[in-house]
């Protein structure tokens, strides 16, 4: 139960942060990515602010265990591989093309706009396609 409340609370705080930061406005995001054009640098401070807070609390938390779990769930992979590079490139292209990344897209569902629905449904389809392929691919091949 505590686990669910913590996760719910985290999602709520996250949503507030995303809206206030401007990340939910796809035009602002595109302005930030318009590095070769009219660059709006202000969203750089979103990541700066987030990392500042997160780095401190993560370091603190890693000294012991989480409040309501036995251990931290950290990613196993450490090395950079082709999947990481290709996946990030594809994600970046989709992000720059629409101004949406997963969190902001979900939040924008509250606008009841068909473009958002199209994006979110397509995003879910993209996720499912990958997860189905992942089952069939021998992970050793695509390192």
């Amino acid at each position, binding site marked *: 139960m505590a686990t669910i409340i913590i996760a*719910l609370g985290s*999602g*709520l705080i996250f949503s507030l942060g995303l809206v206030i930061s401007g990340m939910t406005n796809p035009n602002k995001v595109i302005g930030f990515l318009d590095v070769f054009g009219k660059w709006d640098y202000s969203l750089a401070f979103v990541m700066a602010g987030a990392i500042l807070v*997160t780095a401190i609390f993560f370091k603190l938390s890693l000294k012991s265990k989480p409040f309501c779990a036995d251990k931290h769930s950290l990613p196993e992979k450490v090395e950079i591989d082709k*999947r990481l590079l290709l996946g*990030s490139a*594809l994600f970046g292209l*989709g992000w720059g093309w629409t101004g949406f990344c997963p969190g902001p897209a979900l939040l924008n569902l509250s606008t009841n706009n068909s473009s*958002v629905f*199209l994006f979110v449904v397509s995003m879910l389809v993209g996720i499912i396609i990958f997860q189905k392929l992942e089952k069939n691919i021998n992970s050793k091949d695509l390192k």
Partner: protein
Amino acid sequence: MENILYPLGGGMLIGLGSSVLFMGIGKIAGISGILGLTLKKPVLESLWRYAFVIGLIGGGLIIKLLNPELFEYEFKFNALDYIIGGLLVGFGTRLGSGCTSGHGVCGISRMAKRSITATITFMFFGAIAVAIRGAL
């Protein structure tokens, strides 16, 4: 100066949200992964994921009810753009094991070289996509 206050403050809240999840239950607030795994893992294992997504979407609904002016921007592109964009983001984030929250915030905060590399890569290709659109 004012133009960076909301991004900075919002970013710090994002950091707080990520910290609550990590300090509380030891999980990384990577939205693409959380969303993806709700579709993959058994329901009982994913209860916290559902709760997080409900908090995220529900929070948005509440904020929009209280402050609708925060959502007054246009979605300028056409249906095909959103379909292709969505497919790229969905597939790409899962292939690359993360997005702006997972890699950009949590990963970089841990000084993980995978995340630093991923973030540089998706930022670069994001800029490329914007540039391509500008050239068309």
